């Protein structure tokens, strides 16, 4: 018989993306309280101390789905997309007063909307101020009162009578929220495997402090509802196990939440979307079996100030607005002629179904296509007009979703972009990606402001810390695949000068740098002018929409003010709360760091800190 070459046999290591341990019995969450200097974050304003480390139990695979154990590490079988643990945090009590108190920029409202003090220093600024004058109506207003301004922005689809009817009906009875149809506990759907409510659920709900945090966290095929202010927070309120679909993303509707009602939307690896109301244990399944779009949902968010509408990013590059109340209908692009011509112009947002379509009986409400590459994340601007979308092809788009129009398209330095976030005042957008950089983009100047270098691997989540942002200085946090949490203090006046001019100099260069950059931008092209279009909404030229990659020599580099390894596993989510910073990792660890006791809300500390760091 014939002898074979050395048979490459390999130990069974689990399929790629499989949960690490792969234990096969249902286990409980564990809560630990590690202490010591390695669990503290030392920043200028004080020391953040690890409060606790909550480890969510990874559920075993569903019995019907035999675990795919391919002993061959080269196997070409495709495993479904998975995502690490992410959290949706909700405080059921109305939060208005805390907003006005904590978003400190509100205090500087009047001065700010006219002339932002930090930029005012530059005489050249008058130039862009003039051109900004128009955009102030959008951005400026967004700046002044982010949370409330949304109410003044027209609601999505308000111009469409087909939609308005339904909206009107809903808003009739604001106190009695509509619940989803099916009971998830009694459901016999094959999509949901098991629902495990806490034995004393009602008691715990009653005991819940209304200003305390509820969290929804996905881990593998499970979704857990946690009460983070409870003394037994490791015990979930409800745990839902899905059969094989993994929830990749979720979002809580901030405008419908209340003590007895929370609308949460879940996007799955199978493309399905579930609208779930945890208090009544009801749910509705949307895009069932991918009827409208059969690719996984990578990010999902409620439209700002909308009770019913939410936006889902599918992995084929589609952005779809669904209505939680509507049934699915098979989707075909409505305006074929347009689609064909638009494909040629890649710089456009292809509107496959407009919100203004009269056919609004079924989902989707509207359907846009950015490109065909996977959308990794998106974020709505505080002024409720724009959405920032980042994709695997390295593009970063700003879309006016009310007008269904692409305003800007930027590229990462290289590699895909993974996460995106708006500053609380809507002036800046930060992105993180596979170039290991956190990039700060200015909307007003439609340019890259700075690149933040400090991560040792891909950046998976960025967030502004609204409690530490003021008109001069923005606090940004980021986490990455390097298991580290980095904090950045970004102040426009304190940017480091790129090394282009001379040898690396550590001294902080103030507005002169920025001025130089601006004039250069001004001279080289007319990009700056494009922000007047931002408001006018007139048709845009492609050159104005698509922005080229900035060379390294021309962009400022920002160093972090704090960098700390906080986990053993790649991190995937970051959240700032009034009293803490939270991170979560791919393996289900949720860490909470208490803010420094005395430092919170003190202006002096933060400014001196940023000054000394700069």
């Amino acid at each position, binding site marked *: 018989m014939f002898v074979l070459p050395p048979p490459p046999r390999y130990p069974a290591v689990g399929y790629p993306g499989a949960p690490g341990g792969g234990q096969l019995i249902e286990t409980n969450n564990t809560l630990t309280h590690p202490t010591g200097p390695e669990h503290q974050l030392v920043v200028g304003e004080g020391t953040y101390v690890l409060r606790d480390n909550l480890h969510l139990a990874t559920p075993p695979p569903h019995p019907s789905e035999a675990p795919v154990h391919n002993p061959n590490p080269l196997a070409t079988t495709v495993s479904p997309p998975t995502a690490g643990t992410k959290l949706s945090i909700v405080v059921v009590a109305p939060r208005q007063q805390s907003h006005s108190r904590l978003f400190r920029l509100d205090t500087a409202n009047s001065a700010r909307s006219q002339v932002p003090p930090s930029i005012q220093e530059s005489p050249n600024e008058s130039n862009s101020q003039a051109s900004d004058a128009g955009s102030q109506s959008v951005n400026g207003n967004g700046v002044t009162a982010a949370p409330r301004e949304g109410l003044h922005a027209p609601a999505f689809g308000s111009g469409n009578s087909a939609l308005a009817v339904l909206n009107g009906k809903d808003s009739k009875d604001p106190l009695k929220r509509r619940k989803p149809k099916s009971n998830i506990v009694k459901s016999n759907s094959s999509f949901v495997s098991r629902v495990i409510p806490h034995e004393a659920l009602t008691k715990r709900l009653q005991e819940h402090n209304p200003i305390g945090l509820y969290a929804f966290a996905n881990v593998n095929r499970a979704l857990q509802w946690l009460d983070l202010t409870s003394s037994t927070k490791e015990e979930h309120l409800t745990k839902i196990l899905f059969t094989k679909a993994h929830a990749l993303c979720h979002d809580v509707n901030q405008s419908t939440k209340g003590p007895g009602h929370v609308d949460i939307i879940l996007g799955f690896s199978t493309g399905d979307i579930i609208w779930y109301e945890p208090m009544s244990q009801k749910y509705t399944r949307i895009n069932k079996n991918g009827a409208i779009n059969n690719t996984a949902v990578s990010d999902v968010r409620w439209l700002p100030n909308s009770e019913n509408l939410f936006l889902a990013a599918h992995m084929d590059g589609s952005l779809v607005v669904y209505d939680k109340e509507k049934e699915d209908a098979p989707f*075909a692009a409505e305006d074929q002629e347009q689609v064909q011509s638009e494909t040629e112009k890649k710089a456009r947002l292809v509107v496959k179904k407009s919100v203004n379509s009269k056919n609004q009986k079924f989902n989707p409400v509207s359907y846009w296509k950015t490109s065909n590459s996977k959308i990794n994340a998106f974020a709505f601007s505080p002024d409720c007009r724009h959405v920032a979308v980042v994709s695997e092809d390295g593009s970063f788009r700003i879309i006016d979703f009310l007008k269904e129009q692409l305003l800007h398209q930027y590229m990462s330095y290289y590699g895909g972009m993974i996460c995106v976030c708006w500053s609380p005042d809507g002036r800046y957008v930060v992105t993180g990606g596979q170039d290991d950089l956190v990039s700060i983009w200015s909307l007003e100047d439609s340019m890259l402001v700075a690149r933040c270098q400090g991560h040792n691997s891909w950046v998976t989540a960025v967030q502004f810390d609204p409690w530490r942002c003021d008109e001069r200085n923005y606090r940004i946090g980021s986490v990455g695949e390097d298991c580290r949490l980095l904090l950045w203090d970004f102040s426009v006046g304190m940017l480091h000068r790129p090394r282009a001019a001379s040898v690396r100099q550590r001294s902080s260069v103030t507005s002169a740098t920025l001025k130089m950059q601006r004039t250069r931008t001004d001279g080289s092209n007319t990009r700056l002018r494009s922000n007047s279009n931002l408001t006018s909404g007139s048709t845009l030229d492609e050159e104005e929409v698509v922005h080229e990659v900035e060379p390294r020599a021309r962009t400022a580099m920002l160093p972090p003010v704090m960098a700390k390894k906080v986990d053993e596993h790649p991190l995937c989510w970051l959240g700032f709360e009034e009293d803490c910073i939270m991170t979560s990792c791919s393996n289900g660890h949720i860490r909470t760091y208490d803010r420094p006791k005395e430092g919170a809300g003190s202006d002096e500390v933060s400014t001196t800190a940023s000054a000394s760091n700069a």
Partner: protein
Amino acid sequence: MTSFFGRLKSGTGPASPASSTPPAKKDPNAPQLTPLEKLLQDAGPIRADGSDKFFGFENFGSTCYCNSIVQCLYYSVPFREQVINFPAKSPPEALQRPATGPLPRLNTNLLADANAQSSTLSPKGRNSFSTANSASPRKPVGTPAGAISPGQPQKPEDNKDSPEYKKKQALAAGPVLSMDYENSKAYGMSESLFSALKDIFEAVIAHTSHIGVVSPHKFLEILRRENEMFRTPMHQDAHEFLNLLLNEVVENVEHFSKTRVLEIEDKETNATIPQSNAVVNGTTPSSVGWVHELFEGILTSETRCLTCENTSQRDEAFLDLSVDLEQHSSVTSCLRKFSEEEMLCERNKFHCDKCGGLQEAEKRMKIKRLPRILALHLKRFKYTEDLQRLQKLFHRVVYPYYLRLFNTTDDAEDPDRLYELYAVVVHIGGGPYHGHYVSIIKTQDRGWLLFDDEMVEPVDKAYVRRFFGGEDQLACAYVLFYQETTEEAMLKEQEEESLAAAKQAAEVNTEPVSVATPKANGHGLTNGHDHILPVTPTVEKDDQFASLDHAVTAPPFHTSNHNNTMDHVTTSIPMLGKRQSNVASKKEKAERVKEEKERKVMEKELEKQAKAKRKELETQRRDLFRKQEDDLRVALAASRESATEESKKRGGAEPPATEKDKSANGLGSISKGSGLSRFRHSSMSLRHKPKFWSAGKDDKKDEPEVPSTPVTAEAEPSAQGTPGEKEKKNRFSLGRKKSTFHL
């Protein structure tokens, strides 16, 4: 004839023994094709540049290090071009070719037999295919599989999804190019690794089949004759081999041109070498350094003496970069770490010319000139003191598809140069002394392919990302090849990719088994995953559409569409562009434009059809889902009852197939001690050949054993290497010495 065999093959599953004829043209109706064959169904006539050839390489027992690297080099387009065109493009008739035709193995066997007898150095592995086959015809390879009915429990090599089976099939299907001859005379060169490599490339390009297997007998023979360290049938380091091969090629090329120059000066007639005249004309001095032009970059090391504050700079060339790894890092970060400042102190003090004497100093290395092809060696094999041997690091190191370098000097030219990942050499195994190498390569217009010895298989683009490493990942990227590209090319490619993805998505909707889905051997989807199939395209080039077109409406001329992707390659590599224009005539280009237009029209039409189809498919799909759901519900009902019991059972049943198999992998039988001694041995043996292995190389060899003081490797040359001394060294050793840097 061929279609007959295609059908025969599809009927019986595996190829019958007789079907060793080149399956150049596939019968489109044959349903049971390998994924690669499916991919190539629309392949047009053979191209002159070899970009449409997908040959596996036979493994002679642990020669996968060689196979994976040679494959990467073959698909480094400018490198392939240069190999073919140096010293001059040989007229096809002047070269001996591997036997082809209906009885390829007969010929081969004779030759291989003779070869095996004539040379004791001919490649022989413990499990060598070649030795076994050279004595007996290859025919038995195909037969056993034919008798096996699918679905039965089988030996690993009989499982149709196993790589063993596929490799066997690839060998059986052929054609097998037995590279046991050499054409060095025809090239006007002496026999060398370069001439053998050129032989392989020439043979592959000239062959009439798109697929097949290369048996690199001669290449390995020369390699082993010249380099003692590769003589053993043991597992070798692929990066070391890459380094050796590149340097060897540099040396061969320069040696050749030197002798050529001498010959011209002597005005001696070289009647013995018929090609010589053409050769001389074709060889300009500038073209000699083409390996340098492609792979070489320049590092500047700045050393600042802490005593006299004097900064000295020194430039050093490199052919690849070796970077240290950290757990949970990225290639970007590894490169940045590479250029971080380090202190030269204590044992590694710096010899300052100004103050005279060993002083403490600060040193940092930055890239002054970026190479066109950046070969990144991830140092996964690290010496551990307490174990007294090399260990494999399983660190998770992520690598992006596109890359720019942060660690350039201020005066570097084009510091924002964009690189794209095009080849990954993957090491599979638990340690440095055994295991397996495969390469995953982005081909010009066929997307990413997995090259695992004899087997070649199309893979998803996302597949490339499975080899980041990590605790439970045996297979990790070991060498990454990045090539320079432009943003335009990147955007264009991304667009094509997404087009392909869109098409594929549509395809997934219409057919349960898509052509491009990397499922093994047409074994259908075994699960309900079809609605979560990859969004990332398997095949990113638009000729994938051409193939779809082809199936529906397209006339045959469609098939040569893949040419148009060549354009973007040429834009990205200007030097290559000129060369390619020689290959592709203007007429062809005009045709291409025409075809492009026609294709667009076709696509539009197709899209309309697809839309019309969609509605009726929708109903079909719903039925399907309903059925799936029912099935699932049944399964659920059954499972719910016994959920906990089953999981318990499984808990007991799961673990067995674990670590113990590691050693079975390749050379498990080799003791760890001998493995270590091999490394020492090799470095010793290298010292026997001072001409080839300069001090720098020795440093490199020693380095893994003293990683605690990594500076030594750098400090040494900087201490001894005064500029004058450096100039004196001949260029070969210079190139070699500078080829690797360890920090």
